[in-house]
């Protein structure tokens, strides 16, 4: 991987900060965008912008083509059969809310169970709390081993025939653990449950094949994988989507509207109300093309290298505690940690002063933090455009944190 060439595509990485180019290690929160993506959006806006699916003129047609063309790229990206099964949303959060409302609230009843894991992002947790509350279903948790981050084997037994939904992140945004979701999916399907896979932290980093995974729903965000804000994806199996209530109502998702009743459009329009974010769709297509060109094998190789270097370096610094497994082979591009006696917010502040961007807080995973007995943590998350030199710089300054805070070890 030619890091230098790649980094030329990301002007923001040259931004001066703390006396040197910024070191952006908050990629799990949102990624940066390469020039080809910015240019594709610019080109659309200066050559082809119109309202898709709503007119016969040349710009309405170019907008429709841009929008539908982008879906075809997404379809291939996750290896789906039909573009009908690809719904554009605003982000992972909206994708998950769509499932919760249009599937969860209408298909579950009192006494049914929903199983999620304690490591879920709030988007895949609070959503199910509401479904449980509205339907009378019960929300069960699969807990993880506090050291390794692996699911507790015995908790998998919670996936029994009362369970109607099993929802979990393919990669946890705190533990960063990369595990094989297939046994869980298989167990869920044997129990007759529907599987919701939160791909926010997996889709940006690795090839995803929803047919092979055989998950029923899959959600991810464009902004975490080099695309613009405001575009997300929901994949769902056609017969499930067909059988669901519409989500938002309005233009473009209708077949025929009368004063007192409405026939809804077919998939995917049924779930796409109002004027869509075509620029977002264009940027997502450009982002996927960009990532494909680099290649996911290369991306994973680079990230593995950086994570390994980071973990090995951190293990050498006293008073650093890595959250979850310390095996770099199991970490998907991110490492969460704490520094003894230094609050994560202070760690982030100290690093930010020298131009290093890491995330601090509960990372939208409060129940996991509570379970682990910490209130907050730090997270360094990498993407393919990060370099070994950046990790070195990060480690160097991480080493100073305790001394800045007045500890002399």
């Amino acid at each position, binding site marked *: 991987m030619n890091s230098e060439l790649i980094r030329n595509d990301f002007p923001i990485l040259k931004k001066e900060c703390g006396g040197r180019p910024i070191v952006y290690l908050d990629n799990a929160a949102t990624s940066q965008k390469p020039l080809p993506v910015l240019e594709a959006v610019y080109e659309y806006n200066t050559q082809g912008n119109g309202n898709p699916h709503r007119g016969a003129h040349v710009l309405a047609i170019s907008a429709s083509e841009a929008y539908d063309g982008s879906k075809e790229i997404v379809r291939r990206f996750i290896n789906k059969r039909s573009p009908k099964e690809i719904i554009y949303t605003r982000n992972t959060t909206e994708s998950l809310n769509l499932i919760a409302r249009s599937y969860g609230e209408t298909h579950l009843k009192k006494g049914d169970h929903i199983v999620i894991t304690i490591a879920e992002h709030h988007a895949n947790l609070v959503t199910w709390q509401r479904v449980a509350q509205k339907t009378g279903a019960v929300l069960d948790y699969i807990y993880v081993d506090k050291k390794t981050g692996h699911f507790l084997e015995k908790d998998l037994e919670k996936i029994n025939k009362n369970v109607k939904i099993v929802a979990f992140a393919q990669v946890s945004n705190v533990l960063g653990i990369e595990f094989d979701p297939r046994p869980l999916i298989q167990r869920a399907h044997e129990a007759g449950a529907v599987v919701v896979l939160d791909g926010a932290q997996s889709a940006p980093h690795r090839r995803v094949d929803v047919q092979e995974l055989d998950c029923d729903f899959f959600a991810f965000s464009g902004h975490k994988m080099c695309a613009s804000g405001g575009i997300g994806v929901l994949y769902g199996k056609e017969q499930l989507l067909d059988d669901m209530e519409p989500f938002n109502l309005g233009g473009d998702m209708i077949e025929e509207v009368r004063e007192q009743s409405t026939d809804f459009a077919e998939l995917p329009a049924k779930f796409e109300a109002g004027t869509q974010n075509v620029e977002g769709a264009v940027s997502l297509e450009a982002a996927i093309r960009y990532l494909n060109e680099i290649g996911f094998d290369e991306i994973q190789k680079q990230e593995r290298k950086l994570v390994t270097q980071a973990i090995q370096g951190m293990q050498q610094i006293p008073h650093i505690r890595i959250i979850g497994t310390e095996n770099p082979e199991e970490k998907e591009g991110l490492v969460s940690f704490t520094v003894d006696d230094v609050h*994560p*917010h202070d760690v982030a*502040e*100290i690093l930010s*002063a020298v131009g290093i961007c890491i995330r601090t807080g509960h990372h939208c995973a409060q129940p996991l933090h509570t379970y682990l007995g910490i*209130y907050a943590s730090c997270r360094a998350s990498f993407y393919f455009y990060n370099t070994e030199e950046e990790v070195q710089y990060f480690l160097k300054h991480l080493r100073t944190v305790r001394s800045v*805070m*007045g500890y002399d070890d």
Partner: protein
Amino acid sequence: MDMNQLYTELILEYNKDKTNKRPVENPTLSEHGHNPNCGDDIVLQVKMKDGVIQDLAYTGSGCAISQASTAMMIELVSGRTADEALRLVHLFLDMIRGKITDESQLEELEAAVSLKDISKMPVRVKCAVLGWHTLEEALTKLQSKTVKSNK
């Protein structure tokens, strides 16, 4: 901002000073305060006697700024009446909001004056005011209770 300006010796000292990081026995009121996004989370406990703050301490966790600020506050208001404490809380909050131009007014805040420049760091303002806001809540509740029980 240079880290040495933010994490001054004074702040680091108060951050490490755990004298008042402890539960209060038989508190008159416990009040929870938090900044979910930063990860600051404290419980402030106050014991009143004859309208005066007899004991004040906190438990929980937070960044150096929130911990030092809370420690400074406790030192400042302990032994004062609720009214007096509230006045100082408001003075501090005004300072952090950058509303006070006459520096001499701030002397009363004692060690907490050192947090003045936080007003230039929007993200840290929340940390600096956490303890003070929590005390404000607590005292306001106590006063409305007193009013009620006086009726």
